[in-house]
């Protein structure tokens, strides 16, 4: 498999306000067809990073390349390949959707002949046809958000940056926007931020976790959702001697949680669950609970962002409670 083209590359982005680092040494790569999720608690520096990627803020150090064009060197050329939806949708409440999108198309230099088509495509993608002639100010938040997304994709940019695209929407609207983002990924590459885990899991194929202005974790979500576990939790009604649990094949260590519950640490790549069941039947321990403690994105996220990140050296260690 050949690697798809890198469309956006950020190297060593830092932004300093006085003594405070809003972002520190952020490195990102976005390939064609990829949906990258930027995850982090409030105030982690997600929006700041996206603003730097969109050229709204100049980083103190570091550089952004879009399709190989430096954002600092040739901003107008680089921005042609960029669509950006900020936290607040950048809409004009006194215009109708069609007037607004017409202006956005002109702003991105779409020539007159192609303009109508571009507007039509963007409205179809965001399902805006039904209210094309209504004033944006009179529309619900969900429709305003969709207008914001429509302006970000109207010029078919290579890179679409969406800052919290589903915030403030109802569940049905959220599902619609997620569907839209997934459909965008076929033609554009998308980078979106969120502090909601299921959202990232639902639409992204790669996730980057930010905390206090730094990238603390990055992984492909197809590997994140694969059940990899390091511990088993078992419970018995009868008395199960821990020393007997410890000799089961693949178990490296036994934590006694209380008289009936234990946590078994597993050697890498082993699955001793059938052996545990077998031993429990033979010993008559009365097995009532047996589950693998999966290492999920949520565990990683909580471990990395709750409290001080520097106190938690690696994510693998911290998931062992």
């Amino acid at each position, binding site marked *: 498999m050949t690697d798809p083209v890198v469309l956006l590359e950020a190297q060593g982005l830092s932004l300093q306000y006085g003594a405070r680092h809003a972002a520190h040494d952020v490195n990102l790569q976005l390939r064609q067809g990829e949906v990258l999720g930027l995850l982090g608690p409030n105030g982690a520096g997600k929006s700041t990073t996206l603003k730097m990627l969109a050229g709204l803020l100049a980083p103190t150090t570091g550089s952004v390349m879009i399709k190989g064009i430096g954002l600092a060197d040739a901003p107008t050329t680089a921005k*042609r390949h960029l669509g950006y939806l900020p936290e607040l949708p950048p809409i004009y409440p006194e215009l109708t959707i069609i007037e607004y999108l017409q202006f956005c198309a002109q702003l*991105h230099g779409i020539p007159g002949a192609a303009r109508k088509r571009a507007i039509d495509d963007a409205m179809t993608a965001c399902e805006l046809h039904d209210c094309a002639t209504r004033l944006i100010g009179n529309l619900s938040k969900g429709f305003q958000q969709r207008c914001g997304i429509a302006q970000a994709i109207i010029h078919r940019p290579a890179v679409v940056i969406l800052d919290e695209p589903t915030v403030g929407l109802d569940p049905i609207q959220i599902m619609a926007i997620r569907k839209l983002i997934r459909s965008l990924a076929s033609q554009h590459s998308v980078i979106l931020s969120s502090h909601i885990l299921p959202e990232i899991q639902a639409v992204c194929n790669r996730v980057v976790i930010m905390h206090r202005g730094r990238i603390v974790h990055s992984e492909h979500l197809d590997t994140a959702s694969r059940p990899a576990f390091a511990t088993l939790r078992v419970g018995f009604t009868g008395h199960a001697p821990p020393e007997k649990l410890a000799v089961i094949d693949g178990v490296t260590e036994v934590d006694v949680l209380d008289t009936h519950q234990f946590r078994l640490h597993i050697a890498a790549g082993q699955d001793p669950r059938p052996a545990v069941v077998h031993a429990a039947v033979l010993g008559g321990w009365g097995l009532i609970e047996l589950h693998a403690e999966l290492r999920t994105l949520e565990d990683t996220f909580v471990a990395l962002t709750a409290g001080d990140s520097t106190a938690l050296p690696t994510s693998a260690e911290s998931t062992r409670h």
Partner: protein
Amino acid sequence: MSVTLAIARNETRRIFATPLAWTVLAIVQGILGIVFLLLLLEYAQSPDRQEHYTGLADYIGNGLYGFATLLLLMVMPLLTMRVFAEERRSGSLSLLLASPASLVDIVLGKFLGLASFVLVTVALIAAMPLMLLVGSDLDLGRIAAGLLGLLLLTLAFAAAGLFVSTLTREPVLAAVGSFGLLLSFWLMQVLGTRPGITGDVLGYLALTSHFENLRRGIFSSADVAYYLLFTTLFLWLAVLRLDSERG
């Protein structure tokens, strides 16, 4: 350039889509209408004035334009405050900043949008003295010079207000700020009467002192250049300000 024009068209459309523009136009026109009527009545009732002043155009022009500048000085900050401050607060400024439009395109486009409103305002004001064409022999040159002065002065107000609007995200603060800035340029005229070099410099810098010649019908390129420089300076400052905000 086409981007500048697109922004200008969009600004114009948005200005006239809000009730603010129409309300301002109505109030300015209403008040100036009353002033115009009072001037006309006074002129008709005092024959000695007719000898003292050189003519009707001068008399009406002086009074009407003088009052119009004061009124527009108070009104323009209300229109310029929304240009950047309000857009920054509502978040719609990011649309322009993230687009391929350069900062010069953005500032110039927004200024041209304001200029279209100023043109409409001045055109409506012009209708009043031109109405006198029906019953009198009007000195059109004088009227035109006065209107040109009024246009240039109001565009200078707009540029200064636009610059102040880039400084803040609070529209009210922008309005108060530009009102303060415009008034201080106005006050320089008062200080300009003081003897000495300071008085001369301040008098020269004052916004309204350059209007006097035009109002009297004297077209001096120095005065026109002053207004063009004033306008360009503040538009350039606005570009610098937006640029510094990025980094």
